[in-house]
């Protein structure tokens, strides 16, 4: 078992290093194939572990070596595979495998093809460390590792230059990468503080030991730890107010968006909350706060997706919105539901993104949906896949999203948090609308792209075969809900719906499906026939507010980045140079000035020397008198 664990863990690392060997050489197809295979190996190992666990629900532990052993701190590279981890591993490696294969297509003409695989596999490795670690610091390794890989991949096309926000709201890939990294760092500090608190109060960082001794902590302390850890989660999962980086991260190559910014990395925050469920279960008030924030983010992000014209940004907002759902579930105590939605979402969202990747390729990297339309003719298969994924996302029976999202709504209802339920319900409608707005704008209606002289083409067939697992899972994953629940609740707390909710289930389903379907229909009527732009709407305050992301990026720039830069300049030029350094130089200059003044006395004239000699007698007398006077 341990061997399997190590295979699953290290195959991506090997893949990354292998690809790195070729990082500076010409494109080498071998790299892509080997990398994909190795990730595939990792997937097989993960899946095997999952099945193994399904039969024998005992978590697997492995201890690789010591890491930081100082004082009372004893942190090892320890790994554990339990139910939650197994699910995460499987999801991660599955999506990764597909993305790796897909990247062979997507990056085929990129001159940094080899480098790309190196980064991508490194990401998978980091993600595996993140989910498999058996202690918080190990998690932190992965946590930062995925951050760096995300930084590398978002900024993959580093050679693009900075644009203004009007031209490109993300400014440039390297800018977006830095933004993502720095925002994550802010959150990481929270996580780190949480880790410190755990260490100094419990003396260990291993999950098992920490959660076993939670009763030693006071309530306040637990709340503090819970909040600190959640701040970490907020960054990684791009929750408000640290959300802006996610949309900008769409500057990365699309496979990256699919893998990192939809399926895996951004769910790390959710994973952390799920992992720390014993903690959050004891502090329901924090959980409730998480749920409220998640709910808010769900509708907040969905609202921005409503009007955005950028193909990938819409999906990014949708991701954000779905992460809100997951947090809502986790915050309300339904951890396995959150995990379930996490997995389902990974499949259909990755699919959606990869489909969008096909579109982008076809459109020569044009992302404005207003310039597309009618692509169904050229790209039938992509239309099918994206349509499926969008249906799943919208929560239409019998696709995966239906099961997972509906359960979340049920949970919200069950907890009597009707406000949350209502917002999430509303969001479900909005989700359906923007998803299909996107599908229809891209694939149906008039062929606006022709105006721009673009000749779209469908992707290779093998690409669709490669994507098939995701498509299939997006369709059928929901049917495994019961099995999943049984499996996950071996580890996670069982979530019981009340009787009342059981009675209401059907009504809820109908209500939810109804709003989803109406969203789809609305989109259909508005966009399926072709794009009719209404300047009045587009100039309205609400529209501009939404399309400018509530002006939050601009706010951040004006309220944080610029003042920080100005302050830095002041610190340097006004304080460091003019005060601190000038003081030092001033002392030196004063001394030198003193020398200049005192050498005036040495005027070369013997007569004044003799006067000084006489004055010296008076001086020593005065000193003597002063000495007497003082004592």
């Amino acid at each position, binding site marked *: 078992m341990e061997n399997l664990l190590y295979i699953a863990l290290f195959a991506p690392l090997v893949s990354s290093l292998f690809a790195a060997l070729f990082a500076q050489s010409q494109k080498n197809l071998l790299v892509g194939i080997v990398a994909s295979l190795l990730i595939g190996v990792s997937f097989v190992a993960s899946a095997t572990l999952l099945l193994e666990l399904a039969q024998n629900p005992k978590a697997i532990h492995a201890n690789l070596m010591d890491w930081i052993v100082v004082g009372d701190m004893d942190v090892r590279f320890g790994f554990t595979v339990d139910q939650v981890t197994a699910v995460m591993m499987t999801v991660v490696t599955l999506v990764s495998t597909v993305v790796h294969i897909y990247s062979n297509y997507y990056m085929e003409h990129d001159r940094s093809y080899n480098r790309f695989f190196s980064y991508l596999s490194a990401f998978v490795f980091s993600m595996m460390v993140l989910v498999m670690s058996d202690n918080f610091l190990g998690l932190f390794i992965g946590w930062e590792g995925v951050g760096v890989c995300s930084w590398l991949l978002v900024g993959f096309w580093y050679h693009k230059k900075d644009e203004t926000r009007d031209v490109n709201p993300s400014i440039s890939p390297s800018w977006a990468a830095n933004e993502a990294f720095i925002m994550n760092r802010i959150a990481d500090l929270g996580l780190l503080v949480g880790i410190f608190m755990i260490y100094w109060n419990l003396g260990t960082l291993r999950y098992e030991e920490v959660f076993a001794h939670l009763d030693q902590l006071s309530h306040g302390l637990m709340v503090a730890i819970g909040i600190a850890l959640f701040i970490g989660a907020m960054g990684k999962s791009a929750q408000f107010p640290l959300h802006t980086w996610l949309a900008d991260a769409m500057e990365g190559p699309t496979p990256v968006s699919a893998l990192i910014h939809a399926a895996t990395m951004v769910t790390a925050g959710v994973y952390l909350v799920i992992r720390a469920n014993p903690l959050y279960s004891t502090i329901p008030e924090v959980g409730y706060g998480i749920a409220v924030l998640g709910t808010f983010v769900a509708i907040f992000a969905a609202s921005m997706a409503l009007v955005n014209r950028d193909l990938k940004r819409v999906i990014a907002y949708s991701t954000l919105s779905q992460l809100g759902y997951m947090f809502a579930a986790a915050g309300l105590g339904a951890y396995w539901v959150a995990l379930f939605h996490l997995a389902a979402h990974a499949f259909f969202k990755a699919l959606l993104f990869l489909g969008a990747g096909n579109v982008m390729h076809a459109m020569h990297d044009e992302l404005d949906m207003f310039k597309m339309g009618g692509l169904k003719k050229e790209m039938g298969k992509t239309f099918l896949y994206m349509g499926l994924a969008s249906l799943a996302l919208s929560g239409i029976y019998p696709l995966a999203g239906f099961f997972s999202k509906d359960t979340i709504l049920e949970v919200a209802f069950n907890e009597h948090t009707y406000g949350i339920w209502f917002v999430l319900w509303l969001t479900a409608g909005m989700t359906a609308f923007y998803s299909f707005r996107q599908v229809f704008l891209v694939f149906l209606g008039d062929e606006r792209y022709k105006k721009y002289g673009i000749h779209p083409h469908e992707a290779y067939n093998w690409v669709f075969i490669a994507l098939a697992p995701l498509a299939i899972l997006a369709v059928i994953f929901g049917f495994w809900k019961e099995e999943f629940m049984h499996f996950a609740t071996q580890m996670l707390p069982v979530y019981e719906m009340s009787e009342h909710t059981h009675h209401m289930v059907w009504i809820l389903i109908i209500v939810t499906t109804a709003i989803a379907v109406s969203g789809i229909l609305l989109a259909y009527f508005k966009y399926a026939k072709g794009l009719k732009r209404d300047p009045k709407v587009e100039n309205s305050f609400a529209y501009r507010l939404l399309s400018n992301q509530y002006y939050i990026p601009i706010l951040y720039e004006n309220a944080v980045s610029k003042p920080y830069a100005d302050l830095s300049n002041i610190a340097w030029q006004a304080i460091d140079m003019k005060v601190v350094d000038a003081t030092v130089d001033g002392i030196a200059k004063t001394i030198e000035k003193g020398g200049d003044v005192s*050498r005036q006395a040495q*005027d*070369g*004239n*013997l*007569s004044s020397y003799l006067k000084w000699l006489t004055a010296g007698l008076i001086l020593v007398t005065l000193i003597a008198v002063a000495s007497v006077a003082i004592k």
Partner: protein
Amino acid sequence: MTLTLTHYLVLSAILFAIGIAGVVRRKNLLMLFFATEIMLNAANIAFAAISAYIGDLSGQLFALFIIAIAASEVAVGLGLLILIYKKYGTLDLDKFTVMKG
């Protein structure tokens, strides 16, 4: 009013101060040397007086040696003055101010 040691000593102090005044005032080196002689003489008076009043001979001998010293100083000093006069053509000390600062 009897004559006490203090009388002599005060005289000596005053003469010494006169010597100082001369030294700090004079710009002609030769005349400046006169003033230094006054200072040494003032000290001599003090030594001789103390010596006499306490009946100890050391003071007188000190004065004796001071006289010898003064004489030697004059010899060397005049030698220097001659040297300088030959080079500079003046004894005005305001002229010797090349080195300063």
